[in-house]
């Protein structure tokens, strides 16, 4: 087991070694790509003086409320669109029109409406994550096998029971897959919105350090954000598999 893990992450290790050697041998300009050891040292520095922590917390708050809001609004809306024609008629054209829009195009609009603080960032993340969540809930609920609904009804289930006990669990695999897409989008929009404006967050820290020319620290934050995204996806995947054990 130890060896397989080692083999699997070997390419990453090689990349790390290359990252260390290339700037030292001046194959690349060390001021543009500081060696990994310098980046690591800067990372420890950021951790010690608390910059990583305070900005991380404020990014986390934006991410949590943005994504959480998208899930809280998107799942019920998608299910309702699938179940009630009226809701579908009203919401579908809006959803379809917004679908091809680049998510980051929303950020300036949100800043205009909600200002430079956390509000506009939460709204940008929320709006961007909303569509994949709505669509997955919609498709998942539409695809429910009607014999399942009929079986429940003939067992004595009412409309409300059917919604909670048949439609939602049936749609759950698709909903969870949609949320996974939303998690990926949330990280992109989170960093993009903080890069653009603001005085807080990991995205802000990247642009602040970049503008100040502190590249080793800037790379340290970039790696941190990537690692957070990676582990968030892994943790989510684990949760998803646990929730859907019944599938295989």
């Amino acid at each position, binding site marked *: 087991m130890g060896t397989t893990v080692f083999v699997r992450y070997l390419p990453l290790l090689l990349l790390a070694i290359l990252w260390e050697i290339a700037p030292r041998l001046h194959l690349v300009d060390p001021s543009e790509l500081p060696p990994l050891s310098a980046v690591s040292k800067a990372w420890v520095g950021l951790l010690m003086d608390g910059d990583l922590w305070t900005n991380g917390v404020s990014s986390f708050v934006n991410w949590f409320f943005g994504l959480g809001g998208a899930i809280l609004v998107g799942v019920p809306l998608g299910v309702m669109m699938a179940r009630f024609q009226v809701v579908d008629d009203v919401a579908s054209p809006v959803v379809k029109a917004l679908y091809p829009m680049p998510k980051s195009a929303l950020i300036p609009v949100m800043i205009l409406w909600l200002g430079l603080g956390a509000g506009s960032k939460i709204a940008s993340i929320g709006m961007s994550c909303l569509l994949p969540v709505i669509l997955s809930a919609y498709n998942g609920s539409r695809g429910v*096998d*009607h*014999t*399942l609904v*009929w*079986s*429940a*009804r*003939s*067992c*004595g*289930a009412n409309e409300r*029971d059917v919604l909670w*006990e*048949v439609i939602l*669990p049936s749609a*759950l695999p698709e909903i969870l897959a949609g949320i996974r897409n939303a998690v990926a989008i949330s990280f992109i929009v989170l960093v993009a919105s903080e890069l653009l404006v603001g005085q807080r967050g990991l995205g802000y820290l990247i642009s602040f350090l970049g503008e100040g020319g502190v590249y080793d620290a800037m790379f340290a934050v970039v790696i941190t954000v990537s690692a957070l995204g990676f582990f968030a996806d892994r943790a989510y995947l684990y949760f998803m598999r646990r929730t859907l*054990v*019944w*599938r*295989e």
Partner: protein
Amino acid sequence: MMGSGIIFGQVSHTYRPPRGRPVLALDGVSLEVKEREFVALLGPSGCGKSTLLYLLGGFLPCEAGSISVGGQPVMGPGPDRGVVFQNFALFPWKTVRQNVLYGLEKQRMPKAERERRAQELIDLVHLSGFEDSYPSQLSGGMKQRVAIARTLAIDPKTLLMDEPFGALDAQTRTLMHEELLAIMRRTPKTVVFVTHDVREAVYLADRVAVMTARPGRVKEIVDTRPPDGARTEFIHTREYTEKVDYLWNLVRDEAIRAQEERD
């Protein structure tokens, strides 16, 4: 006490697809099923026999004609009419035990009692030891036994079966026939059984209603009760073979007509 005799009176049904023109699926079907009688609806695919069953189940609205169970018009689905579908229709996220418990929970049976009842039914369909398995871990025959247990658990007076063994292999199907007959001996019910398998219809049913190709009408009703009432032996008698031949000829014409219409 309310009975469970079923009366279809001049039932017609038009199927309206989202795109394309409406299709007359059933055209004035009249049929009476007596209490505790086992009636098979036999016909070629697309003859509307399943539609008739869904109307009886209350899953589709009855727009023309009347359907009553125990003298009461069918207004919607209800626990007095249990259903078994060809695709099993088990809740895939629930274990065997949870599936069987579902109807009992809906009927608000006290916890201890419903646990006992569920186990009883699981034992009845020979699935002891699989209580905590998910449907995805079971074979087709086992899945259908779970579905039957779930339906029987709430003790419906009427059982509606929509080609319940159609997705099973021949051996499993034969075993399931014997099991179904054994269960019906223990807890007799009114059964409406949809099938396109002539032998299955003759073997299981008291009467077989043969339906025409679309639009579905009742072409003929044939009595298939074994003379001495012994069903398991029936299959080896000449009467059985004769009934099968007779019914096959009736269905054959309709199957050919249905096929011509498709081509």
